């Protein structure tokens, strides 16, 4: 996209993601041609939408589209995507004795789609299978963030439809892209938290002065700014050349910095930020789930470290 289009696209996405959520936002994305943008310029489409979504605290089915696009290209209208279960990136399906077992997650929008794309492992092989959504069990997840509208997807169905083979590298690349999307959403949510905390710090008076004048408060907010900038830099680097390792590191850093951001901003917002009348708690909830989605910072970091010890070689240097 050229810079002018990009600005326009960003504005429309921002409007849409700020106004609508769930099926409303899905419809708006359709109208904006977000899916075409995803194919043409994945880095712009993903970063713009997910950051806005994170900042506004809204949600959509876009994460499923990111995964599907990378797996099978445009799966066409009417097909939703099943995501890995919380905490990891194991394919949501397993094929055992001709039956497809499903255990995963999906955005709320899956209920409106007649069919569902499930990536399933069968021994060492992977395949993408499309099944009727009606054949799956869908349960709305409450959890820490009911507004996210995630569905728990379970199933044990006859594998009637043909499957398309998916190479492990394709799955890894799809997960890598989806992780970047979630990382951008975490950055958006973090920026929103920092904005709330800075506004509060400037306006809230104690001991006759704005609490923003207390160094303990300023340093927490500065620390937060550093944390968020770190995640942004990791994302910039990951888009230069999206390898699974870079993407996992970016997701890990984004998850960790969001938890740091939540901790510092909570402390600055104090009692005000502890009420449900203040929007802050929504971001705390959202970032906790987003950190766990496709692997927590802690688990991604530990597996990175284990891998490094094993091969005795750091990830390749980021070139200038």
């Amino acid at each position, binding site marked *: 996209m050229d810079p002018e289009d990009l600005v326009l696209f960003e504005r429309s996405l921002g409007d849409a993601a700020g106004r609508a959520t769930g099926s409303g936002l899905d419809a708006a994305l359709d109208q904006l041609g977000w899916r075409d943008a995803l194919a043409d310029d994945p880095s712009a489409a993903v970063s713009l939408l997910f950051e806005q979504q994170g900042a506004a605290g809204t949600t959509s089915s876009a994460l499923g589209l990111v995964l599907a696009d990378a797996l099978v290209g445009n799966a066409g209208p009417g097909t939703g995507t099943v995501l890995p279960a919380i905490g990891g990136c194991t394919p949501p399906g397993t094929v055992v004795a001709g039956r497809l077992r499903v255990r995963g997650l999906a955005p709320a929008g899956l209920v409106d789609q007649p069919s569902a794309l499930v990536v399933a492992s069968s021994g060492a092989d992977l395949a993408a299978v499309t099944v009727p959504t009606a054949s799956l069990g869908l349960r709305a997840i409450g959890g820490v963030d009911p507004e996210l509208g995630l569905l728990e997807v379970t199933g044990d169905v006859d594998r009637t439809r043909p499957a398309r083979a998916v190479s492990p590298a394709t799955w890894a690349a799809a997960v890598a892209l989806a992780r970047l999307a979630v990382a951008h959403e975490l950055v958006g949510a973090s920026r929103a938290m920092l904005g709330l905390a800075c506004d509060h710090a400037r306006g809230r008076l104690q001991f006759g002065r704005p609490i923003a004048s207390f160094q303990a408060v300023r340093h927490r907010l500065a620390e937060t700014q550093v944390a968020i900038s770190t995640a942004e830099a990791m994302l910039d680097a990951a888009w230069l050349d999206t390898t699974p390792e870079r993407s996992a590191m970016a997701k890990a850093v984004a998850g960790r910095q969001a938890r740091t951001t939540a901790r510092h901003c909570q402390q600055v917002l104090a009692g005000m930020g502890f009420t449900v009348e203040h929007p802050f708690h929504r971001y705390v909830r959202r970032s906790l789930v987003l950190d766990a989605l496709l692997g927590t910072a802690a688990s991604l970091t530990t597996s990175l470290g284990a891998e*490094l010890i094993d091969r005795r070689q*750091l*990830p390749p240097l980021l070139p200038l």
Partner: protein
Amino acid sequence: MTGVEVVADDLVEFRASLDTWLDANGAVLAPGYEGAGELDQQMDQLAKVKALLFDAGWGRAGWPERVGGLGGSTLTRAYLGEALAARDLVEPGLFSMTEVLAPTVIEYAAPALAASVVPALLRGDETWCQGFSEPDTGSNLAALACRAVRTDDGWRVTGEKLWTSLAQYADRCVLLVRTGTTESAHRGITALFVDMDSPGITVRPIGTMHGGAEFSELFLDDVVVPFSRTLGDEGAGWTVAMDLLPYERSTSLWHRAAFLHRRLQEALESAPPEALDPSRLGEVTELLYAFRARSRGTQHRMADGDRLGPETSIDKVLLATAEQAVFDLVADALAPEVTTGDDPRSRRWRSEYLYSRAASIYGGSAEIQRNIIARRLLDLGDDR
């Protein structure tokens, strides 16, 4: 040394041909000592490498032609330091002093002065130092007291500087002095470019915690400095200093990231596996990668001609955090070497571990960087 054409405006070509040249001339460039060496040896090695680089053209790439450079992108300078650090050819902190001081002199010295002195710094014929801090003035730089008064022969400077890195080796000093009243704070400061062999200057090297005497105490007693050596205008020293500090947080930090990568890789290769905790190693690796990712953005903004400002405080915070995290890990993973080893390699690990403690102090402490971020980037207003 064989001539390879230096292409300063194409990073990919520059990188490839520099790598080839460095590898071909590895034996001549290599230091003649094991481990870190003594400071004197490091300084000799630095001068040797800089001269070879300058004469072959690599050390001139990315610097303006009017000061002996070849022009081209500043990214070439970033890559040069990276390539040297990756091969352990120079001590990166010493090498990067050029990146801190030369841009200031290029920007603020009279053109003829810059043209005559900068090439000598680039070639390693000269060493320069930065005389900002004083015994009573560390973080609160604006309160500095070293005084300069106007006389017929030029400025006469009297006062004291402390922690002046490499002053005992230096030929010149970028010196901040007070030319206004004490109350004038940052408005009454002027920057001077002083010859270190001027009568009245006494240098007392001070041992540092990490070994050697990297910095000195500097006594100035009625030192005459010609007016032609004023950097910028009288009273504009604060601007000169504030423009210099972002340089301290750009190219030189990219060099430092390459150095830290090399050290973490070495620790990973030599530590017993049971001494490495996966989650900690993973986190330090991410931190270092993030520092480099952040610094990469800064290198590109600088190369595009953007003015660097307070956002580079984030880079400095990340350097301090990453450097200390890397060497904290080293201190655990290689505990026998760091604590009780007496071979050259162990001494190097120990020295570098101890030096990493200063990363949150020099160039504006970790707290001062956070103050800058709060005021300048987050717009949190005054802190009182």
